[in-house]
């Protein structure tokens, strides 16, 4: 989108970010010096450098910040030539070990140096007691743009990584005014168990509490609870589980039939799900807050209706229906009325379409579709109701949106075995989330809000 706006906008972008991009790892590029061109270069992103730290306890903080900002896919994250030995302080004075005496007044940053390196922003981290201070420098403006201070739990604390991820999101907000997705996690299923992992691939944790086969985890909108299905005595039962305590409650009225694919409404009050009984599969809701009050939304008869996903305003539900024969993506009002086809298809030509996930910005619905016997991820534009194919390499399925609505996780066998991948829809950059075979059914969390009470 941004790429095609022509040279006028290109000039504007250049005037904002006129510095050349340093090829990451390519240290010789610095010899070429500063280059100013009037050529529109599509995909040019602001340069950002996360400065080396002086306190050894901050190494992991810097590493996590650097990775988060890299994975945001919004910056050219600059690797300093010669590793981290480059002088951090101002004035070009000789490098040396950082003395405690110097920390009284933080020295000004050597802005011209980082300008020369191609940085538009520099991120500096310091630690005072248990409070971490993150300073965002506007390198081009030659000034500090924002300073964030938060208590940082110890490195072994379960809240440590999330606290650093929140800093990364604040840096993104302070530099580009964009909400990030660093403070998020994903749930997925592997070998019949539910696992949780940070969006940067760290902190893999088993969250299933029984040996029963589980499927279809789904986040509550606050990121502190999730729902999932577990096989039990030939049936499928739904549970809601607390992330912090792992305590879970069964969803009443479920478990005496096959109940699956739970989905929270954006206000967290309603849990929609699919129920398979002898007359077919249909979509129901329960009141998730009071754990009561079953309601039926679809009445399929000879067709199946399943896999609900709420629009972010909570007014509509996209779902899968087999009413045209093969499963396709439909939409209805949240009360079950006004059911209609959502993702267009060619009857007799288009393959089965399944697993819809409505993007948090409301503009798109991702799903997968059978293309010549294998599955590919597609994106439906909600406004124009047009679909475009996103993937083509290998088998790709079960997409789930990140809260920034530009990243997406999905399952792919492109590397030879099925694993989880993350793609940035703006740049097309793709990375494996987890280098383990058999992971599937991912669910990306919303931004994980700070708990109301800070008690662990």
């Amino acid at each position: 989108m941004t790429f095609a706006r022509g040279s006028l906008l290109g000039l504007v972008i250049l005037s904002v970010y006129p510095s050349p991009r340093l090829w990451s790892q390519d240290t010789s590029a610095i010899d070429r010096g500063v280059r100013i061109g009037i050529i529109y270069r599509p995909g040019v992103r602001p340069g950002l450098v996360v400065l080396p730290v002086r306190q050894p306890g901050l190494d992991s903080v810097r590493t996590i910040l650097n990775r988060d900002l890299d994975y945001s896919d919004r910056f050219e994250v600059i690797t300093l030539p010669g590793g981290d030995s480059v002088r951090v302080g101002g004035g070009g004075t000789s490098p040396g070990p950082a003395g405690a005496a110097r920390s009284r007044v933080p020295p000004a940053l050597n802005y011209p140096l980082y300008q020369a390196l191609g940085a538009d922003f520099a991120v500096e981290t310091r630690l005072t007691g248990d409070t971490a201070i993150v300073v965002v420098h506007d390198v081009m403006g030659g000034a500090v743009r924002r300073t964030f201070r938060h208590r940082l739990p110890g490195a072994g604390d379960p809240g440590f990584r999330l606290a650093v991820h929140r800093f990364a999101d604040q840096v993104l907000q302070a530099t580009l005014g964009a909400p990030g997705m660093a403070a998020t996690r994903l749930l997925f299923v592997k070998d019949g168990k539910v696992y949780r992992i940070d969006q940067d691939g760290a902190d893999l944790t088993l969250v299933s509490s029984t040996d029963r086969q589980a499927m279809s985890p789904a986040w509550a909108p606050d990121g502190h609870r999730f729902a999932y299905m577990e096989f039990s005595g030939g049936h499928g039962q739904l549970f809601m589980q607390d992330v912090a305590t792992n305590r879970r409650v069964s969803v009443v009225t479920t478990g005496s039939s096959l109940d699956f694919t739970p989905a929270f409404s954006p206000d967290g009050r309603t849990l929609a799900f699919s129920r398979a009984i002898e007359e077919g599969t249909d979509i129901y809701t329960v009141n998730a807050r009071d754990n009561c009050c079953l309601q039926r939304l679809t009445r399929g008869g000879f067709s199946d209706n399943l896999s609900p996903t709420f629009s972010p305003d909570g007014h509509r539900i996209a779902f899968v229906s087999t009413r045209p024969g093969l499963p396709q993506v439909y939409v209805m009002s949240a009360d079950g009325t006004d059911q209609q086809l959502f993702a267009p298809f060619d009857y007799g030509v288009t393959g089965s379409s399944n697993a819809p996930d409505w993007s948090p910005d409301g503009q798109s619905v991702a799903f997968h579709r059978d293309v010549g016997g294998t599955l590919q991820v597609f994106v439906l534009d909600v406004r124009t109701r047009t679909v475009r194919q996103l993937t083509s390499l290998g088998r790709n399925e079960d997409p789930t949106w990140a809260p920034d609505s530009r990243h997406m996780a999905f399952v792919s066998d492109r590397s030879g075995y099925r694993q989880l991948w993350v793609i940035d829809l703006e740049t097309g950059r793709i990375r494996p989330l987890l280098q383990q075979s058999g992971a599937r059914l991912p669910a990306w969390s919303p931004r994980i809000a700070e708990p109301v009470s800070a008690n662990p």
Partner: protein
Amino acid sequence: MKRVPSLVLIGLGVTLVACGKKPETAPAPMANADSIAAAERARADSAAADSARRAQEEADRIARQRAADSAAAAAAAAAEVRNMLAAMIHFDYDKANIRSDDAAALDQKVGIMNANPDLRIRVSGHCDERGSDEYNLALGNRRATAAKQYLVSHGVDASRIETASYGEERPVAMGHDEDSWAQNRRDEFEVLSGGDVLRRP
């Protein structure tokens, strides 16, 4: 060949002679007739009791044998019936209709259900790995329901059959080829209750 019968005859003759001689060489001593009669009677009684006991033992043995045989037969029959009941049926890709080559297997199950009125079963539908994971739960449900509907339409009470679906979560064949997929697209039939003594249809 000719000699064998003559040898047998000679043998028989010798025996006969030997037997014939016995009363002469051992004449019974004259004794109390009563005691003889009593002894005779006692001997006859004991012989009778003996033979009765032997007959009883024989009868017991036969009865035991018969019981064992019939138990074994019943067990064999039950095992056979159980196998017939557990015989899986299979489906085409993304289909839930009963294939004509599976009708005989289902008819057999109708007979078993009719011959064992206490029997309750669960039909579970399964899918291959090619389809969507979650959609396969709905498809497996269709497959289980299709088998149930067949049995019910042939006279089996619907309350005796539960249905379940495991989608593609419990494959029997682990390969990633058509042969494995074909085996995994199936209905399984398991006994819920009343399956301890299964009678043949």
